[in-house]
């Protein structure tokens, strides 16, 4: 299947810094593609070039085979990381404003229902909560029924419940065959929403693929997690990699059964033992040597 978006060897320089250094990837129709990386990795710059609001220093972005131009704006929906809205307008008036900027738009009542904005539709946009505001911004991004939806750090600053609600909303949108480009530094968000991810660092993609595949490629172990207080043996005595992290101890093991037996022999208490698979946070740490949100 031909890709909806093709990014070819993008470069973007600012005085004294090269923010994007030769980024290339493709996104298929109806897929959710995640760009992950710490602050300053170049993901927002990459996305803004893809959105057509920032010119690249070199490279090309194609939409359905054609270089993106101003016409692409009618096909794209964008939720910026932070956006000010016009003061003194209600949620409905704000949506009406943006709807009129496009050649065609979705039914606003339906959009309001999809984004669960019925209770605040007549409220001033300055007087809604953070979660409601993110849903308004998402509704604005969807107002033109876009083929491609860009979500830039959409859940930053939201509480866990609001984040989960937002994820449900994104899944609904994805079910409608919209192509989604998601930038985030929440690994669980990328894991749950994205079909494919690219991890960026220092302006380059350092790993790319479906999240599960990437984890399988890089890790063959599982992590046993214990409170430090329960880990009463000398870590040198175990044939495993042991990592002390705060009050917890993480033991990286290839064979869980064998590791459990070894720990039982050493009389380690299992009452608070947790077994977790490797996740994208681990992958990022493995690839870059640093914490994602450091």
């Amino acid at each position, binding site marked *: 299947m031909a890709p909806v978006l093709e990014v070819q060897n993008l470069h973007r320089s600012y005085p004294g810094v090269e923010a994007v250094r030769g980024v290339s990837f493709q996104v298929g129709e109806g897929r959710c593609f995640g760009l992950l990386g710490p602050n300053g990795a170049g993901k927002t710059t990459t996305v803004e070039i893809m959105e057509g*609001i920032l010119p690249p220093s070199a490279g090309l972005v194609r939409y359905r085979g054609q270089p993106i131009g*101003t016409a692409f*704006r009618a096909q*794209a929906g*964008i939720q910026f990381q932070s*956006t000010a809205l*016009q003061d003194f307008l209600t949620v409905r008036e704000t949506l009406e404003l*943006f709807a009129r900027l496009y050649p065609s738009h979705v039914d606003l009542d339906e959009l309001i229902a999809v984004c669960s904005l019925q209770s605040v539709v007549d409220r001033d946009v300055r007087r809604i909560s953070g979660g409601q505001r993110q849903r308004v911004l998402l509704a604005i991004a969807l107002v033109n029924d876009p083929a491609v939806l860009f979500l830039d750090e959409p859940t930053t600053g939201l509480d866990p419940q609001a984040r989960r609600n937002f994820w449900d909303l994104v899944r609904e949108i994805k079910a409608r065959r919209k192509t989604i480009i998601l930038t985030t530094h929440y690994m669980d968000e990328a894991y749950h929403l994205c079909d494919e991810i690219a991890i960026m660092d220092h302006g380059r993609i350092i790993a790319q693929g479906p999240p599960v595949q990437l984890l399988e490629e890089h890790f063959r172990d599982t992590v046993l997690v214990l409170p430090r207080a329960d880990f009463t043996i000398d870590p040198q005595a175990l044939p495993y990699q042991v990592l002390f992290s705060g009050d917890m101890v993480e033991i990286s093991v290839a064979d869980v059964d064998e590791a459990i037996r070894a720990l039982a022999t050493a009389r380690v208490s299992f009452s608070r033992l947790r077994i977790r698979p490797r996740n994208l946070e681990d992958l990022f740490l493995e690839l870059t040597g640093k914490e994602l949100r450091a």
Partner: protein
Amino acid sequence: MIRRTLAVLHARNLEFLRDRSSLGWNILLPVLLVFGLAFVFSGPDKPLYRVGVLTSGAPLDDAQHPFLDTRYVGFFNAGDEADAIWKLEHHRMDILLDLRDPARYWINEDSPQSYIVEKLLLQSDPGGFARETVTGRRIRYVDWLLPGILAMNMMFSCLFGVGYVVVRYRKSGFLKRLRATPLLSIEFIVAQVLSRLMLIIVITSFVFLGTTTLLATPMAGSYLDLLVVAVLGAVSMIALGLLVAARVSSEELAGGILNMITWPMMLISGVWFSMEGAHPLMQRAAQALPLTRLLEAARAIMLDGATLADVRADVAVLALMSAAFLALGAALFKWRLD
């Protein structure tokens, strides 16, 4: 408490000092204003009153009459008699002195300045001149001043109301969000112009109708012509505000530039007093300001019954300014912060 206050004070000072453009304007603006105002209002024996003098053709000389030696009164050759009387009627001079035979002077009985200069003249030469008053329709100072006040209010509303708002939109990221839609910069700019234009024309019309009714101000010309001139004047100043805001991202810098534009207009466009008798360079500079053109056309229509054809030069200049400012503003317009 002092420690916290000092911490905030220090942070604000750093912010101010590191915003180079704002800091530069904070230094440059008063310097420019001081030198500008010094040029306009200082100089030896800067006249407080303006006296037009009719002569038989000889250049003005103190020896022609002792009154011409009076300090703080500016004397200038008034040229044609009819034209000079028209200027006196329109408060463009305070008294008209005729040194030809028979010696006489004209005053505008509605002008307080005329009254004072007449006292000075009579003290200098009691009984030497025959007294005349301007004839025809009387124009009070308030009739002359009203268009100035309304135009000045339009100027502030157009320049600050548009320039500041656009800078705020840019700083907050709202412009960046609009940039992500199919909206073109010219469409955004036209919308801003029309919004402010409608607002300012409606408000000014209400104030105009209210004050002219209360003050019984004359309206010699056509209301439609006046509306056309007001619209053109407003568009030119809104476009100027948009041009200022086209690239600026700091409210302080925008404020500095807008002050730099509004102050000279307020002082030399003839809002409060006529520039008749001012330095020719200053008069020429004033002609390059949209407020001057708006005011001259509006006063001509209101006080003299001029038509659009009569004020076509002002109309053409305002239209050209509007087009140039809008084109430049659209070309330079920047949606996002650097």
